[in-house]
């Protein structure tokens, strides 16, 4: 045994803890803030780790591995669990064999998601136990407990974290030389457990209820739930990162710190409520603990004084403490404000992004730029409607491109485009979707479009990676999660195989080809697919001959600025291309678009 102290993020700690718990299989689809869990696990050569095609598949692969008796970790972001909900509910019904832990990484405050949701409700919905760590040490410790729990109670365990827990680093003490337990891999035939015919499922349901009763008993005594003695004037019930804020604000209160947040321990809560004068719940997002505590007939307050949405923080908890009268309002520090109207720095497509050219082309079709106001609204219908999807390319919504009209959830662009067409809008409709998103859930949309003869154009932006989450491989990249060469799924093969006859593949950095491909697809009143292919700028290491502006030829028309390339800037009223960030020969989109041919290769080479 060798105890070491490390500064780890919650995600790193989960990966380390799961490894120490003896997992043999890990599956995931990338999604902020969960991605680093599988990235870290993929580095261990004695486990199998995969990027699954989507979260549903990840859960199914995980379930199969569990049935074989091995410990398995499945991780995803909150909205990923929506995709995986079907097999997740099924896993809750069949139960498991090898420990199965499902990570839901929620994103309060929507740092990088399409929505906010509190996935603690999934534990109640699926009737499975849920653990919630508050920092990296707990992430490391609890994940190991989670596997024991899973096997002891024959259930998947929901392990719920949030962005702040997943991405914060804190000190973890761990056994660096911990020996992983070996396991027997064996599938036992048991149709009553594994084949969910109604007759079998009906028999499983009472067992699920029995499991929750047993787990409730467990919750009463587990060290995951702890009382921290303090002043009995106020008792705080808290969990997750909310506990960290509460400890700072209510520095001398009595605490019930819940590491297991479903099912709750009724006796423990009643006892705790009995010994404090006032009971207060500090939790992020929904009043999940509060409502479940109230169901036990215990008087408690919480959301009356705390925000019900957005990320929680110390100031909000402090504000609540003032409202309930435990803290006096100490505003020694006067409020100050930053300068008014500071320019924002919204995320943009990178210099050399292969998506920029295609979006520039789309932005110039159908008089979009004329009819959209500054906020991207219009009473008129543009002659081109662009349904969008989830990825870096969603950023094309922002000015100057403004080339996206919808973005709902993974894969929705194609279905939405079909719906708009079937509803009878008179405009042309283009669905724009990335390569990883297409693999995730665009394929069923294409099949639907073929089957139902949708007259839409689908533009698949193929940059060869899952870029927005930090460049993970996917079925179309030919590289496995663990860095090995593997089979490559062809996007055009899938599309043609589904029955699309008008399929074009174009070079993303050849603007003329991109424009003519999109034009011809729009003119051809059948289902058309244009695959715009070009290497992601961040993965692109070549960077020769950055472009520069020949100011004698430049007439300041501003076309190049409409690409939204961060390298193209205006300094002291003059156009200027930042040589440090320009991708040069790899891109040349601005050079191709400049009407005055004023953008030229710079003489000197800049290497990075």
């Amino acid at each position: 045994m060798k105890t070491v102290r490390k500064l780890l993020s919650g995600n790193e700690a989960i990966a380390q803890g799961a490894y120490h718990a003896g997992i043999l299989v890990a599956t995931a689809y990338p999604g902020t803030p969960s991605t680093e869990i599988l990235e870290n696990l993929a580095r261990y050569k004695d486990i199998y780790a995969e990027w699954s095609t989507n979260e549903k598949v990840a859960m199914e692969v995980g379930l199969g591995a569990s049935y074989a008796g091995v410990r398995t970790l499945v991780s995803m972001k909150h909205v990923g669990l929506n995709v995986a909900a079907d097999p997740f509910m099924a896993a809750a019904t069949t139960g498991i064999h090898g420990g199965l832990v499902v990570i839901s990484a929620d994103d309060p405050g929507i740092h990088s998601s399409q929505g906010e949701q509190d996935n603690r409700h999934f534990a109640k919905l699926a009737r499975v136990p849920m653990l919630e760590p508050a920092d990296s040490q707990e992430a490391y410790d609890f994940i190991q407990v989670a596997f024991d729990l899973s096997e002891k109670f024959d259930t998947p365990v929901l392990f719920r974290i949030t962005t702040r827990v997943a991405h914060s680093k804190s000190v973890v003490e761990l056994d660096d030389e911990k020996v992983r337990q070996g396991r027997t891999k064996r599938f036992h035939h048991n149709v009553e457990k594994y084949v969910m015919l109604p007759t079998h499922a009906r028999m499983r349901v009472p067992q699920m209820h029995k499991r929750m009763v047993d787990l409730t008993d467990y919750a009463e005594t587990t060290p995951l739930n702890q009382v921290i003695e303090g002043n009995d004037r106020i008792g705080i019930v808290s969990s997750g990162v909310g506990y960290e804020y509460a400890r700072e604000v209510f520095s001398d209160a009595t605490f019930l710190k819940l590491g297991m947040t479903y099912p709750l321990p009724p006796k423990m809560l009643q006892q705790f409520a009995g010994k404090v004068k006032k009971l207060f719940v500090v939790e992020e997002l929904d009043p999940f603990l509060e409502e479940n505590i109230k169901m036990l007939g215990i008087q408690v307050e919480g959301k009356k004084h705390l925000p019900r949405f957005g990320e929680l923080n110390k100031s909000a908890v402090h504000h609540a403490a003032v409202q309930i009268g435990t803290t006096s309002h100490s505003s020694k520090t006067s409020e100050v404000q930053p300068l008014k109207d500071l320019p924002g720095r919204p995320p943009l497509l990178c210099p050399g992004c292969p998506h920029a050219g295609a979006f520039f082309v789309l932005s110039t079709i159908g008089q979009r730029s004329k009819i959209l106001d500054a906020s991207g609204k219009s009473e008129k219908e543009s002659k081109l409607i662009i349904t969008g999807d989830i990825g870096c390319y969603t950023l094309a919504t922002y000015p100057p491109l403004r080339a996206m009209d919808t973005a709902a959830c993974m894969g929705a662009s194609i279905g939405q485009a079909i719906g708009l067409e079937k509803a009878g809008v008179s405009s042309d409709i283009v669905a724009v979707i990335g390569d990883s998103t297409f693999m995730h859930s665009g394929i069923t949309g294409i099949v639907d479009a073929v089957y139902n003869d949708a007259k839409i154009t689908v533009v698949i932006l193929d940059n060869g990676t899952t870029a927005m989450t930090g460049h993970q491989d996917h079925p179309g990249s030919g590289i496995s999660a663990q860095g090995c060469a593997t089979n490559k799924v062809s996007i055009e093969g899938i599309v043609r195989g589904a029955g699309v006859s008008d399929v074009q593949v174009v070079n993303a950095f050849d603007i003329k080809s991109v424009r003519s491909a999109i034009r011809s697809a729009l003119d051809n009143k059948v289902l058309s697919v244009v695959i715009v292919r070009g290497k992601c700028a961040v993965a692109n290491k070549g960077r020769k001959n950055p472009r520069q502006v020949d100011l004698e030829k430049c007439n300041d028309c501003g076309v190049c600025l409409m690409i939204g390339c961060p390298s193209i800037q205006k300094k002291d009223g003059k156009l200027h291309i930042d040589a440090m960030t320009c991708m040069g020969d790899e891109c040349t989109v601005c050079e191709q678009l400049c009407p005055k041919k004023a953008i030229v290769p710079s003489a000197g080479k800049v290497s990075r």
Partner: protein
Amino acid sequence: MEVNKQDILMVGVGGQGTILASDILGEAALAMGLDVKKTDTLGMAQRGGSVTSHLRIGKKVWSPLISPGEADVLLAFEKLEAARWVNYIKPDGLVIINKLAIPPLSISLGTQKYPNDQEIIDSFRQRTSRIHLVDGTKQAGLLGDIRTLNIFMLGFLSHFLSIHFDPAIWKQAITKQLPAKILDINIRAFEKGREVASSVNL
């Protein structure tokens, strides 16, 4: 040893090495046996966005986030990014800003205005007079690679921290976080930062 709490906010633009700098400081504090919490907000993975790193060091740290009005130090690698965090600095807190402007697209498009140095300094004066602009980009360039900016700035900051770190701890933390081939120049950048800071009174 009596340990002062230190809440250090580091801000910059994606690609400037903000998170790496705070990682090194975090590792140094860990090596001192202190409690450390660190949280970064970088939005999506694109280049060129705003980056913020909250680093809290002390005997025991609970919240990973620094609260408004409580940052002991603001270390900014770019001026506009500094200006966003005026309300986070505590009264008489320390503000160190790299004298560099990276204009966002809205400036190039002419729809917004980049604040001038005096406006930025004046906004901080509401809270503190301990404000210093240092030309870190120039110093890093003189060292031979402007990408050493982050480590130069960290060296500059290290001179003013109320927790004393042994020089060996700094070196160890930098070594742990950086690839061997760029280690030498970064160690020099750190030392240069300390040296420049030693003649500054804050």
